[in-house]
């Protein structure tokens, strides 16, 4: 329950801060020419968005705590709180869409594009200073998992005919699985799929476009490099803690036979702390590194890619070989739907979820 509450608070903070976390030249998924970044209307809209979302999140949090204190069954309560969470996400996406349309309209009405000069910008040394982690960091967990699979098969004979695969909230076993060559390694296989997708994400981040701005070059270099470096570190931190979690889970269920609860639940808590805490640190680093446009001298602006975005959410550009691009709204990355590798990445990411549901 505390974990759900924690997730709730962090999602609330995240949703509230979102308009202020993206680069200044993108407001509600619309590219803003650099000379117009400080437009008062945009500032006002961002503020309104944050206020409304903070209000909703606050209201829902109160509901959540009431739920926590009320005598409702725990299973039911957690279901309701997940529904609340999704309603909050839906409301904020609805609000985003309405501001997205408004911003687009303002841009056309005031004819910003007619009054600017678009240029292509980059820096020759930026690729050398780029600090995305090397693929080795993402290969090691994969090797660990492969070793775990081999180890499991080596001990196949000593694994019991049925083993635990599902637990209730109190940590008691309530689901069992028949032993087979496939079922004993289903857990490492899920882990492997996630690790491979992380490997691809890191490589995608490395080769993705480094978008500089025309008027605040130094600041935008700093922002881009920070975002990549900490994004990659965060990904590695999740990867390693998840690997430890899964290895322990697998080892305690299949090899040690039903000794999962005392090991797994403390580790699960640690995993959540790393994931959520890491996210907060990451956001803090990002918001600190965001560039400012204090001195805008000319009407120059970096060329934008709005024509390849649908609603500022989906990106599809055949001329761009990149697999990943930074999101236009919110932090993180999204795929280039014109790159065929993206479907493999999506499939690998969805695979574990499908496995969990159908097995």
């Amino acid at each position, binding site marked *: 329950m505390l974990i759900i509450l924690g997730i709730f608070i962090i999602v609330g903070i995240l949703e509230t801060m979102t308009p202020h976390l993206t680069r200044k030249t993108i407001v509600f998924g619309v590219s803003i020419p650099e000379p117009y970044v400080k437009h008062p209307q945009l500032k006002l809209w961002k503020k309104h968005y944050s206020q409304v979302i903070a209000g909703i999140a606050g209201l829902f949090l109160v509901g959540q705590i009431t739920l926590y204190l009320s005598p409702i069954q725990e299973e039911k309560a957690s279901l309701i709180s997940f529904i609340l969470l999704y309603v909050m996400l839906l409301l904020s996406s609805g609000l985003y869409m309405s501001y997205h349309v408004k911003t687009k309209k303002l841009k056309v009405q005031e004819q910003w594009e007619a009054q600017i*000069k*678009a240029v292509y910008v980059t820096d*020759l040394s930026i690729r050398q200073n780029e600090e995305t982690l090397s693929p080795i960091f993402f290969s090691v967990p994969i090797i660990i998992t492969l070793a775990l699979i081999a180890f499991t098969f080596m001990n196949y004979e000593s694994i019991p005919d049925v083993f635990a695969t599902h637990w209730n909230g109190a940590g008691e076993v309530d689901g069992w699985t028949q032993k087979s060559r496939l079922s004993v390694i289903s857990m490492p296989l899920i882990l492997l799929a996630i690790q491979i997708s992380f490997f691809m994400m890191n490589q995608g981040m490395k080769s993705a476009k480094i978008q500089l701005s025309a008027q605040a070059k130094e600041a935008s270099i700093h922002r881009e490099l920070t975002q990549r470096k900490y994004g990659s570190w965060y990904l590695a931190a999740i990867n390693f803690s998840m690997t430890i979690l899964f290895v322990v889970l697998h080892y305690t269920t299949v090899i040690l036979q039903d000794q999962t609860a005392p090991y797994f639940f403390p580790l699960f808590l640690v995993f959540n702390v790393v994931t959520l805490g890491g996210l907060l640190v990451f956001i803090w680093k990002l918001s600190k590194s965001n560039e400012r446009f204090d001195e805008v001298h000319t009407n120059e602006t970096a060329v934008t*890619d709005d024509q390849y975005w649908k609603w500022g959410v989906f990106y599809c550009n055949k*001329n761009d070989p*990149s697999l990943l691009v930074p999101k236009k709204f919110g932090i993180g990355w999204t795929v280039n739907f014109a790159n065929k590798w993206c479907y493999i990445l999506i499939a690998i990411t969805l695979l574990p979820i499908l496995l969990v549901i159908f097995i």
Partner: protein
Amino acid sequence: MQIQLDPNSELQLYKQLANQIIECIASGELKNGDTLPSVRAMATDLGINVSTVSKSYHELEEKGLIELKPKAKAVIIGGQKRELEETEVEKVENALKPIMAEAFARGLEKEQMTSLFQRILKQWK
């Protein structure tokens, strides 16, 4: 070492890119042995076509300023002090002559031209 290309300029994009890299070599920002970003990375970061960057790099290679190596590496070989061959001096002279002639024909004084020359050269030391 910033690159900025103007899509509305008369000069083609590949030419602009080549010129700006050459200026970086002249000013010493890019030294002998430095590597340029790969063609692909450069095209991605600028947001222009891969073939445009490739054309630019090949022109620099023809001029003997960079060396294209396998694994998409482009290494600077220009910029060091060495004895120039006579044909190379001649090439520069041939390229410079029409520009200077045009300036002279437009009515630029010889002294103005010398100071202009000096001013540009000063940027590169």
